[in-house]
């Protein structure tokens, strides 16, 4: 039977169309009819429905996201701003960096391995389509409780998918997060971040300019991936015995993606390409309408030329297919032959499917019939925009009033209780070693990884001659965001900013992945609006512009939304990676300093969560001016060689930070609790704007002067000491010392008049046992 073409559509206005099944509302469908002055063809309906979906059009979030532009701090670093596939930042020496984080939450729940794998693939193509070489990935991941049955289904698959795709693609995985919380049990969050580098002159944009230029589709063939939703159209046009079900999850082929990267970089560097766009969500619909809309304005496409891996696909399905590892390039006719030759070299299929025109229309033909004839801008950019209603939840006040004060949440009071608590916290799922996860990722490939997990941020060398490099960290504490979404977004920003600064890199730019529940729930919408406002205000205060990001709504189980989770990624630059500050302390006698002030702040803390399962109160105060000063100290100290090590203080407070530093270096230390603070508060409070730095003795005066000049609190809390046990054995009686093997110790003095000691072996055992005990079971 013939396809639904524009002539038929014009003469059959009453033909019923399943627009509601495609997610379009009555008024949206009417708007399409108004734009076209007729009913849409089924192919046009497919295009509009997917391009006007929440996922592609940002129709619920757009009005809020504008703040990222409106409140943009002044900076000379932005080369390409929001709106392109990914923002581009100048890092000096003629180099530019692009980075972005995206969600792949829902597919990863349905099919963990492929969902996670194609999440990596999609973000890598975004980076590639800016003209950059992808150089690193990282994955912020959130799951239900570690011991929940479904976590054991989802987590191993997600990790294997991230690793399987990224490892095969040859991109080092240098960081990310693994967080457990009951709210993610039915809706895990799988976010994927990619960083790419390029010379300024290699920046490319997604636009189809130049009448007569060819539209070339290259990469994988097109199959029935990810078009589950369009099957309602297929069932209209197909015979009853045609393929009934289409899969809604895409399947990735990292080998093809690797070829696509090398092939794309070669055609870009050869100067053959006018514009370029990746095919991700909404596939050919998205690529053709966006390229045309951003360029000269018209395009003519012969859809039947698209190479198919399933010849039974209908034109609607081809337009919607989310088959992976495909790109679209706009190539001047005189370059086509050379373009094709490079594709052949890499065994990449390339097909001339269309031409750039000046008609102002996107016209798509199928076997001689016109099945699409639309103004491309109405598809790609002029979708509906909603001012969704929102209001502060009624329960917010009660939640904030439920403060974790000592009288309401019992705290450990004796030295023995505190000793046990340290071991428990070291092994708490959210604080425990994530080596079970990260050991499945290749962190070495490309040979430029300077820092990788469990360091505070991932750092890669960009220029092997000069040592120029970039650092990236992602963070979010969803519990804090639930207590107060405005503060929660700033809290996440502050932590990611600090994690970059701790390594010695100067924070430059911000990306985000805003994971929330349903935008149709006014309380969720309020969380979203507040988080965006908080992040935009925070970025203005810190002088770090938002270069791009992603919104993921409808993350909920039934009517229960996930914790509001605005994941914030910060990118920083370091002139010479040789001067980075690692987290492992080194030399005996080095002084351990705590920077910043510790207050009795436990709302949203890991202690309240782990020990009491409690969430309530006002979150720790966020003071971005202080964060900025702390950042200056961390960067200056790194540049001037004042630090042998540094580590961010956040989840699990000072004590967990010290445990992590000791285990990373395998060297002991002696710490004393300052007289003016309660030991438990000192150990586990989660006040912001703090870091631990390790200062060589001969730098102490200069360091203290630097902090004093900036009016920043610096407290000497300890000293690196590998001989604690040796000294103890030597000082003990002969029989005790006989044959004793000295251990590395972490010692905490002045704890209610007592001294606490842990061997690093027992801390390590507690820290590393948690994930394997559950996941290898």
């Amino acid at each position, binding site marked *: 039977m013939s396809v639904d073409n524009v002539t038929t559509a014009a003469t059959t206005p009453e033909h019923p169309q399943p627009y509601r099944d495609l997610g379009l509302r009555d008024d949206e469908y009417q708007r399409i009819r108004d734009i076209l002055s007729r009913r849409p063809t089924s192919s046009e309906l497919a295009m509009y429905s997917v391009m006007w979906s929440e996922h592609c059009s940002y129709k619920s979030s757009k009005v809020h996201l504008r703040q990222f532009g409106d409140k943009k701090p002044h900076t000379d670093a932005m080369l390409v701003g929001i709106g392109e596939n990914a923002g581009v930042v100048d890092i000096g020496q003629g180099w530019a960096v692009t980075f972005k984080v995206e969600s792949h939450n829902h597919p990863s729940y349905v099919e963990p391995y492929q969902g996670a794998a194609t999440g990596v693939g999609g973000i890598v193509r975004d980076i590639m389509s800016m003209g950059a070489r992808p150089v690193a990935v990282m994955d912020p991941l959130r799951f239900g409780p570690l011991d929940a049955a479904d976590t054991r289904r989802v987590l191993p698959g997600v990790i*294997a998918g991230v*690793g*399987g795709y990224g*490892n*095969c*693609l*040859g991109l080092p995985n240098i960081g990310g997060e693994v967080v457990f919380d009951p709210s993610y049990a039915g809706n895990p969050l799988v976010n994927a971040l990619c960083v790419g580098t390029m010379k300024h002159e290699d920046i490319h944009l997604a636009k189809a300019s130049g009448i007569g230029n060819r539209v070339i589709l290259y990469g994988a063939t097109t199959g029935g991936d990810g078009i589950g939703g369009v099957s309602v159209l297929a069932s209209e046009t197909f015979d009853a015995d045609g393929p009934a079900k289409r899969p809604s999850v895409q399947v990735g*082929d*990292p*080998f*093809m993606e*690797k*070829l696509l990267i090398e092939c794309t970089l070669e055609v870009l560097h050869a100067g053959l390409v006018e514009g370029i766009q990746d095919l991700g969500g909404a596939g050919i619909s998205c690529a053709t309408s966006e390229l045309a809309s951003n360029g000269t304005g018209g395009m003519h496409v012969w859809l039947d030329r698209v190479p198919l891996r399933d010849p039974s696909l209908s034109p609607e399905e081809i337009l919607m297919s989310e088959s992976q590892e495909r790109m679209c390039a706009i190539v001047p006719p005189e370059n086509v032959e050379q373009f094709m030759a490079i594709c052949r070299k*890499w*065994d990449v299929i390339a097909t001339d499917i269309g031409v750039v025109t000046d008609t102002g229309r996107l016209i798509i033909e199928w076997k001689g019939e016109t099945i699409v004839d639309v103004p491309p801008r109405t598809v790609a950019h002029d979708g509906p925009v909603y001012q969704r209603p929102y209001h502060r939840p009624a329960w917010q006040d009660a939640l904030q009033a439920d403060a974790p004060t000592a009288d309401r949440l019992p705290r450990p009071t004796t030295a023995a209780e505190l000793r046990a608590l340290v071991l428990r916290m070291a092994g708490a799922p959210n604080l425990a070693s994530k080596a079970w996860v*990260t*050991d*499945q*990722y*290749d*962190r*070495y*490939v*490309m*040979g*430029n*990884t*300077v820092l990788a997990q469990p360091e505070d941020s991932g750092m890669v*060398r960009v220029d*092997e001659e000069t040592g120029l490099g970039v650092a990236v960290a992602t963070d979010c504490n969803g519990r804090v965001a639930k207590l107060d979404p405005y503060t929660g977004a700033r809290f996440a920003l502050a932590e990611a900013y600090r994690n970059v600064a701790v390594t010695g890199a100067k924070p430059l730019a911000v990306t985000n992945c805003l994971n929330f529940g349903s935008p149709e729930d006014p309380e969720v919408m309020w969380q979203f609006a507040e988080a965006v406002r908080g992040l935009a205000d925070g970025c203005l205060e810190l002088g770090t512009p938002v270069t791009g990001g992603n919104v993921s709504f409808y993350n909920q189980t039934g009517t229960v939304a996930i914790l509001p989770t605005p994941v914030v990624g910060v990118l920083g630059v370091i002139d010479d*990676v*040789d001067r980075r500050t690692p987290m492992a302390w080194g030399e005996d006698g080095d002084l351990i300093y705590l920077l910043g002030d510790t207050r009795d702040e436990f709302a949203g803390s890991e202690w309240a969560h782990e020990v009491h399962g409690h969430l309530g109160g006002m979150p720790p105060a966020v003071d971005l001016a202080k964060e900025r000063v702390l950042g200056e100290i961390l960067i200056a100290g790194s540049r001037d060689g004042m630090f042998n090590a540094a580590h961010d203080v956040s989840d699990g407070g000072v004590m967990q930070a010290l445990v992590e530093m000791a285990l990373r270096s395998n060297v002991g230390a002696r710490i004393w609790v300052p007289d003016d603070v309660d030991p438990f508060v000192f150990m586990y409070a989660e006040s912001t704007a703090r870091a631990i730095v390790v200062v060589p003795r001969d730098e102490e005066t200069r360091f203290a002067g630097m902090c004093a000049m900036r009016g920043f609190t610096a407290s000497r809390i300890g000293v690196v000491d590998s001989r604690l046990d040796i000294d103890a054995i030597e000082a003990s009686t002969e029989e005790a010392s006989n044959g004793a093997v000295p251990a590395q110790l972490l010692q905490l003095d002045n704890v209610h008049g007592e001294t606490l000691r842990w061997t690093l072996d027992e801390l390590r055992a507690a820290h590393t046992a948690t994930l394997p005990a559950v996941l290898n079971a």
Partner: protein
Amino acid sequence: MTTLLGARIGVVTFPGSLDDRDAARAIRFAGGEAVELWHADADLKGVDAVVLPGGFSYGDYLRCGAIARFAPAMQTIIDRARQGMPVLGICNGFQILVESHLLPGALIRNDHQHFVCRDQRLRIENTTSVWTRDFDFGDEIVIPLKNGEGGYVADEHTLDMLEAEGRVLARYLEVNPNGSYRDIAGLVNAQGTVAGLMPHPEHAIESLTGPSTDGRPFFTSIIASLAAGVRA
């Protein structure tokens, strides 16, 4: 023509090779000239030795290294290797050498079924090969290991022969990361010229980016060997 100091070492890029740039960098660090070779090109550009880098050649479809073996470049390399040209296969390169029957045995899925990336301790047990002469026997080194299919297997007879002939190049210490028989991490042919190694020495040439600089002697060894007159 090659000069005494101008060791020219080829690095083959297959579709899906990932550590080719790293191998080239390691060769340059050691003082050699790294020459890019392309899988589809049978011409080896007159190189004195070849490194087959890590990665997932041809997507590791069918079986790791099984398709790469038939690449035009490999046909020349197999012929020349049989005539004495030094070849080092790292990770996927090791798999290709095994598939090419230049080395015995096979590499199979890790026994624990996961991809593993870790800093691995090894003991060097052959210091006569052209790739390990700059080590001392029994040297313990730490270099990255990263593989999904790195379990070395062979029949008992072959394993006994490898041991008897001193052809085990390196053995895993502390942890056997992939279930390799007899903890074998690498081996060499009877002539001491064709070596396969599952861990990655090319990722351990700078302390900045690797866990150590323990990988360097593999590359200085070949340059010294070539200077001493080992030529194909």
